[in-house]
């Protein structure tokens, strides 16, 4: 009767479709009610050019605010109607995404009313903000696919950001800083691995302890050492690189081909890990250990060693993600600067259903929420900035609660392996 547990029943599907419909109606109400009446101008301008030049220029998109919002509202209303009646069957989740996307377009139109919004800036910001989240989510995927729950990504981030800052400052090279960050991420991973794989402690508790530990240690060292020795906290940052020609393509160029090494690294890491997990011998063994360690053991796979290595590799990946703060984004360490992105990375892993590419997609979504908050502040939208800063978390909650549905984690996730 295992089929019962994994497939969604017809009744549950109807209920879900109704829930989605109610959500869409809420969007319609906001769009039709608030956006049409409170716009600060008649037209919204979307700038599609990058300030740094490109092969050829694109004209700016100028849209009449109220008609655009109304058209989008009607489209969402149509989706809502179908959701509340026959439903979309297998495409239900996709259609919620479409409705949400249309809502965001209407929201942008409203926000840019009487002003100009840089689309490139928004999308570049999305990729940038999603970089550490994607690295963190990849770390989570690696650990949990091997059967070890890692909620300590936030701790790995903080430790790595701190170490990267100090090492880069001392050596005067961001590359040395990156090595330091990787080392710190791996160190936290090593503690996680030792406590949960070898000593079989509860993995959630170990994770919480490691977060508290990393937060405490980095805060302490910051006040005790860094504040008195500013020369230890002036890391040189990675420069932005351009891929010649490709970076000149309008829209795509500045978004994808003008990055720091960490930005490019993210794309490589996602593609490589996805391939490695699902197409290679290494990945098959790693996943077998997370699904059915005893079965793996009986065919001669060393369960504990495989888990150790997966968690350590995860630590390396999370270390790169943590280094992003001090070697890429800010160029200085400050206490708790990672601001909960490690938890968002965890959510991205879940939303992406434990797959690297899926987690990357989710990271982009959360990165977009981040970038949007920044863009809106620049536009001077009448929403308090403190509220805007919560946007990534609000989006996380909505997506995780509403869309994830029933997940199927690796079967032995979180269970220590005892032989015999």
């Amino acid at each position, binding site marked *: *009767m*295992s*089929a*019962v547990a994994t*497939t*969604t*029943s*017809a009744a549950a599907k109807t209920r879900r479709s109704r829930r989605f419909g109610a959500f869409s109606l809420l969007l319609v109400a906001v769009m039709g009610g608030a956006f049409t009446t409170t716009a600060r101008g008649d037209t919204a301008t979307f700038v599609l050019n990058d300030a740094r030049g490109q092969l050829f220029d694109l004209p700016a998109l100028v849209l009449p605010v109220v008609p655009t919002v109304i058209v989008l509202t009607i489209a969402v209303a149509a989706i809502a109607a179908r959701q509340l009646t026959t439903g979309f069957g297998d495409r239900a989740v996709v259609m919620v995404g479409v409705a949400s996307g249309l809502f965001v377009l209407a929201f942008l139109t409203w926000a840019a009313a009487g002003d100009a919004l840089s689309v490139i800036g928004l999308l570049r910001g999305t990729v940038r903000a999603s970089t550490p989240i994607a690295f963190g989510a990849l770390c989570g995927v690696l650990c949990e696919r091997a059967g070890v729950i890692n909620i300590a990504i936030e701790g790995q981030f903080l430790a790595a950001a701190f170490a990267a800052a100090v090492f880069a400052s001392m050596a005067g090279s961001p590359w040395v800083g990156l090595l330091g960050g990787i080392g710190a991420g791996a160190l936290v991973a090593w503690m996680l691995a030792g406590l949960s794989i070898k000593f079989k402690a509860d993995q959630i508790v170990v994770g919480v302890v490691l977060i508290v530990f990393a937060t405490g240690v980095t805060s302490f060292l910051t006040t005790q050492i860094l504040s008195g020795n500013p020369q230890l906290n002036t890391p040189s940052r990675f420069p932005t690189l351009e891929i010649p020609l490709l970076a000149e393509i309008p829209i795509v160029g500045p978004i994808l081909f003008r990055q720091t090494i960490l930005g490019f690294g993210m794309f490589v890491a996602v593609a490589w890990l996805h391939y*490695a997990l699902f*197409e*290679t*011998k*290494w990945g*098959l*063994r790693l*996943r*077998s250990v997370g*699904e*059915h360690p*005893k*079965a*793996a*053991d*009986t*065919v*001669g*796979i060393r369960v504990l060693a495989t888990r150790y290595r997966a968690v350590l590799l995860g630590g390396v990946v999370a270390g790169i993600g943590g280094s992003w703060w001090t070697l890429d984004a800010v160029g200085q360490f400050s206490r708790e600067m990672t601001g909960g992105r490690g938890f968002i990375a965890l959510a991205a892993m879940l939303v992406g259903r434990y797959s690297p590419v899926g987690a990357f997609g989710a990271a982009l979504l959360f990165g977009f929420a981040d970038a949007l908050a920044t863009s809106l502040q620049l536009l001077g939208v009448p929403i308090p900035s403190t509220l805007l800063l919560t946007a990534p978390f609000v989006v996380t909650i909505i997506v995780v609660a509403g869309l994830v549905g029933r997940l199927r984690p690796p*079967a032995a996730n979180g269970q220590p392996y005892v*032989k*015999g």
Partner: protein
Amino acid sequence: MRLELRGITKRFPGVIANDAVDLVIEPGEVHGLLGENGAGKSTLMNILYGLYAADEGEILIDGQPVELREPDDAIAAGIGMVHQHFMLVPVFTVAENIVLGVEHTRRFGKLDRRRASREVGELAERSGLPVDPDALVEDLPVGIQQRVEILKALYRNAQTLILDEPTAVLTPQEADDLFEAIRAFTGEGRSVVFISHKLGEHRAIADRVSVLRRGRIVGTADPRETSEQELANLMVGRPVSLVVDKPPGSPADPAIEVRGLTVENAAGTVVVDEVSFDVRRGEILAIAGVEGNGQSPLVRALTGLQPIASGEVLIAGEPVAGRSRKQILRGGVGQVPEDRGRDGLVGEFSVAQNLILGRWDDEPFTKRQTLQFDVIGAHARQLVEAYDIRTPSVDTPAASLSGGNQQKVVVAREFDLPIDALVASQPTRGVDVGSIEYIHERIVEKRDEGTAVLIISSELDEVLALADRVAVMFHGRLVGPFEMPVAKEAIGSMMAGTDPELAMARGGER
């Protein structure tokens, strides 16, 4: 390959699972291993497979001592094992499961899936164990999953194959197919260790049978020269009766009433189709059938675990629908679930705790919101004694008991209380003949106390031994019930879907 075990001893806390065991597996033979639950069969085989380390003794292959510290070593030495509980990754394909650990790769460590698929397909064909290499294991019925397990060993070029209770989950037809494959395998000079509680199977397939009792080898017999009765006596160490002594019952009013019951699975498919029957107090109704014909959802609906699409179920006159599990159980329904590991026991709880599952907050086990451990312990010791549960102590975690003894824990708990109705699925799966005798006697006793007993079994012998009336389930529909006696052949052909009238007529002829 000639395999020899010399003086193997293995101790677990509180038990000696193997006590100076000597055993020789000759090339080309099927060596049967017989023994009560907890006699140490699985432990001995796990030692041979490198999963457990023996405390004493040595293993020789073709006269040479070998060290088998890890399954890797055993595999390299040509030993393959199909475990009592399958060792397959449900979300992997058949081919992935089979090559796991010995994968062929292309550039960059890329799995050569095409080659795996092809090789597995060819191997399956050659060994007479057909299976789709690209199917997901979780989508396969257990019979096919077992083929995958065997293929896994064959793929590693096993010269000696250990099969730990391979037939416990098979239909009679599947078991015959398996025997066919075993014969083909040993025909090439390779050997098989075959563990089973079914004496008839040893007589059908084994060349020699060694009998283990409480960790010691107590005899080796030629199964063709030895009767089932003799084998059973040797195994248990006392005369066992293989037929239950069952006086005619005296049925009264119905305690289980099922009217037009229809159950759907999660996908909305009808899996139990308009089923109606009664079970009266003081009678045993046996529902026979090949597994997967709707028995599991039927039982789950009867005990309130699965919603009813239409129709109704009354137990002791009260509808089941709308009542909580606890109310149903407290209302006098005993249940032996088909998958004891999942639905019958909490593995990490002690035997004593498992024996009060569902009753833990009743007097005398709980007083003033506090568990009374001395009462619980005494209760457990009494049941362990009465049901002959082989365990080092009542504080041992249930998961470390042997399979058959786990089943006895469930049976002891459910039979201990006076109940109106008893629903037992595969009550003797994986249980040795001595214990089968015992459990069957208890079931008949329950009936005579005035309990309505419903047995769901795919084991024809069990159905014939217990039933006062018999019904057959096929594709979600119920055929019958019929008053016993019904010929064994008739039930068998109804299980295969033959029209009942035809089946009865044919069965009657024989």
